[in-house]
Structure formats: structure tokens, C-alpha cells
């Protein structure tokens, strides 16, 4: 069922959601837009196509405490961090971000289930917006994602003065119920023109016609041993930008921090670009930047599809394309490895 709300009244909608649940949405802070908790003062920014960091943080935060230990009168106590027990809504995701959550689900919800992630996923409602002005760095189409019809719990479109709202899942319908007094019924057809428009722009984008067959057809070891890696990795500065802005990178590290009276064990995103990635007691099995660089792209384009029925763990959001300090990115890798369309 299609609903709509006047865009000028979105503040009321947000307030209504926030009354019942935590609401995360793109907020502009010091000139950059990232997902943050909604407050009355927050400068909500729905115009920026893509947040700097993906909404991954809402499900799998960059740093999260696992447990705290403390020593009191010779007695050691361990307090596990509480699991998420409050419903929350992530508003303003994009179709690619939604697909990225599916990529994460495959990893974290498979046995053994990651309880921290699972609790957050269970309490989350995803509200995604169609991309009305996709950019040249976008290539979600390559992965079969339709930016004109995001597959979230609720899909939204901004057409004219209105925001159109359509629940696609049970969770989405429940959310519509919560905010129904702010929504008025609308015609399904109202967004069709916008959808056609979006799809025609996406067709014209330079990366929309990449072909990834080469990664499925070539034997894994042949790709792994390709001498193209040696030339491709050279500009890489070994920073972690691509992995930290990536909506699907899921590697993490577990560390201890000595607090005032104990130890805090926390996990934080890791990056395969860093020299201490997968460091173990015996040392590190990847000893050069070339190997680490190769790991990232083999993981996205070969290992992950091999494990999950051909699903790539890139969603074409283009964040790494626009943020890499050395202008390297996954598209250049795809093209160099023979994936040009």
C-alpha cells in the first residue's frame, strides 16, 4: 500500500518514530553527512546521495565493547555488554546499503551466530530511499540492485513536494502502523515516472555495464596468481579508507584496553590494508602490501561469491571510488582483471 507525506512535514514523521524507537538517519555534521541518532536539533540531510560511512555502523559499529572485567577486593567480575534490546529505525538508506546488509547477514547470522549483530538486526527496521540523482561512481546495477526500488522494509521516493512511502515487509507494515496518522494513502503510479527516470540515468552511468563473468569463469588460483596484482597495488598507500567506508567489509579485530580498574575487551573494524591484519603469534601470513591488496579484492569478487551462491560482496555503492586517496578502487581492479563490459 502506497502512502505519502509532505516533505515539509518530515520532521513530524521523525519525531513520531523517535517517540517509539531510536531513529538513525543521515545527519550533516561539520560539513559531512553520516548516519547518526535523530534529535530535534540534528541537521537531517536527505539530499546527499551517499553518506561518508555506510549505515553498517548501525548494525556492526566500528568499535563495540564485548565485556568489561573489574577487580574488586581480590574478586574478578566479568560483565558482558548488553545486547541491543530496543527497536530502531534506519531511515534514508540506499538500495546498495540494503543489499550490503544482506551481505553482512550471510556472514554474521550463519552458524555460529554473532549475537551482537543478530540482536541489532532483529530490532532494526530498514527504510530506504530511491536514488533520484545517481552519480558516476555508482554501479549497483552491475550487482542486480535496482536503485529505483530499494528492497528494504520500507521503500520511499521523493517526488515533487511529497515523500512516498511503501512498506514491503511485515516489519515495514508495523512501522507504517506506528506513523499512520502522518501518512495519507497515495497512488502506486505516483512514483512510476520517477522510477523510469532513475533507471534511464543509471543506464547512462559509466560503470553501469561492467561485466563480472571473468570472476566466475576463471579458476580461483589463476586469478590469485595473476601478475596484474603486482602492477595494480603500487599506488596503494595502505590506509584503511576503502575498508572503513565500505558497507560490506566485515573483518574485525578484538582488543583489550586497560581501564581504570580492569580491562575492557572490545572489537573494532579491521582492515586488510593494515600491516597487522591477521597478525598471529607466529607472525603474519601476508607479508606484503600486494598480498593484502589482493586479499581485499579476491574476498569481494571471488571468495565471497564462492561461499554464498555467487553473491558478490561488493554492492556498487562507489564509496571507495570517491574516497581512495590514491584514486584506486574496485572498478579499476575489475577492469584490469578483464571485467570490462
Amino acid at each position: 500500500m502506497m502512502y505519502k507525506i509532505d516533505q515539509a512535514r518530515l520532521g513530524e514523521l521523525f519525531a513520531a518514530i523517535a517517540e517509539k524507537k531510536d531513529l538513525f538517519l543521515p545527519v550533516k555534521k561539520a560539513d559531512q553527512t553520516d548516519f547518526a541518532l535523530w534529535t530535534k536539533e540534528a541537521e537531517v540531510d536527505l539530499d546527499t546521495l551517499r553518506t561518508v560511512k555506510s549505515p553498517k555502523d548501525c548494525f556492526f559499529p566500528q568499535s563495540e565493547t564485548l565485556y568489561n572485567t573489574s577487580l574488586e577486593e581480590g574478586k574478578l567480575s566479568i560483565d558482558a555488554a548488553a545486547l541491543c534490546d530496543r527497536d530502531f529505525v534506519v531511515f534514508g538508506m540506499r538500495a546498495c546499503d540494503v543489499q550490503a546488509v544482506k551481505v553482512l547477514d550471510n556472514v554474521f547470522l550463519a552458524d555460529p551466530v554473532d549475537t551482537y549483530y543478530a540482536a541489532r538486526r532483529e530490532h532494526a527496521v530498514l527504510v530506504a530511499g530511491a536514488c533520484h540523482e545517481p552519480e558516476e561512481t555508482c554501479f549497483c546495477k552491475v550487482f542486480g540492485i535496482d536503485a529505483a526500488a530499494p528492497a528494504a522494509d520500507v521503500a520511499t521516493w521523493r517526488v515533487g513536494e511529497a515523500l512516498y512511502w511503501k512498506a514491503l515487509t511485515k516489519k515495514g507494515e508495523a512501522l507504517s502502523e506506528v506513523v499512520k496518522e502522518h501518512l495519507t494513502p497515495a497512488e502506486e503510479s505516483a512514483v512510476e515516472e520517477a522510477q523510469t527516470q532513475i533507471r534511464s540515468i543509471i543506464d547512462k552511468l559509466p560503470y553501469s555495464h561492467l561485466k563480472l563473468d571473468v570472476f566466475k569463469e576463471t579458476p580461483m588460483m589463476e586469478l590469485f596468481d595473476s601478475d596484474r596484482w603486482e602492477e595494480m597495488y603500487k599506488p596503494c598507500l595502505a590506509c584503511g579508507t576503502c575498508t572503513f567506508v565500505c558497507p560490506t567489509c566485515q573483518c574485525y579485530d578484538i582488543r583489550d584496553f586497560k581501564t581504570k580498574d580492569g580491562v575492557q575487551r572490545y572489537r573494532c573494524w579491521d582492515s586488510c590494508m593494515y600491516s597487522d591484519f591477521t597478525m598471529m603469534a607466529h607472525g603474519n601470513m601476508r607479508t606484503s602490501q600486494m598480498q593484502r591488496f589482493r586479499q581485499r579484492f579476491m574476498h569481494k569478487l571471488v571468495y565471497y561469491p564462492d561461499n554464498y551462491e555467487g553473491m558478490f560482496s561488493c554492492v556498487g555503492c562507489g564509496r571507495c571510488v570517491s574516497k581512495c586517496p590514491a584514486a584506486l578502487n574496485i572498478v579499476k581492479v575489475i577492469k584490469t582483471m578483464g571485467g570490462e563490459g
Partner: protein
Amino acid sequence: MQVENKKEFQPKIVAFCCNWCSYAGADLAGSSRLAYPADVKIIRVPCSCRVNPMFILRAFQRGADGVIMCGCHPGDCHYTTGNYYARRRMTLLFSMLDYLGVEHGRTRVEWVSAAEGVKFSTVMNEFVEKIYSLGENVRLEDLRCKES
């Protein structure tokens, strides 16, 4: 001592003292029975020049409300020039902390010789007073290191 009527806030002060002058100065203050507040925790370093800016920041992270560095008077360094380098470093570091909005009273450098027990005691009393007036350090704090 002046601590009694200010029970609620007990500042933590870290004093980096060079081995050759200031630490001996503190010793002299002690053996001369000159009082200085127990809030001051002294860390002995071989030379004021050994104090890395990271030490200062780590002290704040670990709960210090004020950090003071003491070394030999310029010209008297046991290693001839160490304190001249330290002087430049600390000047720039303190200026940067000030630029980031950290109260400049929280950091201080004093040159204290081995004969200046009185100066050591006076400086520490003054500095502790100053930190009392500034209150708890919140701008360079690490929440994980606070009392839970």
C-alpha cells in the same frame, strides 16, 4: 593543608622531574619538611628532554587533571642542552593544546634546581591550587579510564 574544604574534587597531578635537578629538588623539599600536596605524583625521568608529548597526553588520558614538567635551569642541564630542546617541545605542545581548547593552566613547565626545595614546594602548591580552580579535566579525558 588546603585540601580539607575541597573534599569533593581530588585532583591528580603528574609531575615529570628530571633526575639531576628537579627530582633532587623534590627530595630536598621532603628532607627540609616543606609541605607540598599529596596529589602530586612524581615520575622521575633522566632528563626533561626525555618527556615525549605522548607522555603528557597519556597522563591526561589516565586521569591526570594537571601535568607539570620540571627540569634543570636552562644552561644547567646535566646533558648540556637537553632542557633547551624540551623547552621548545613543550612550548609548541602547550600552544597546540591551548589551540584545541584545553585550558592552558593544566600544563606547566618549571625549572627547579637541586638546591631549590623551597621553589619546588611553592610551585607544586601553586599548581595544585590552579588545578583546583580549573576543576576536573574533561577536555582531554578518556571515559574508559574514569571511575565507573
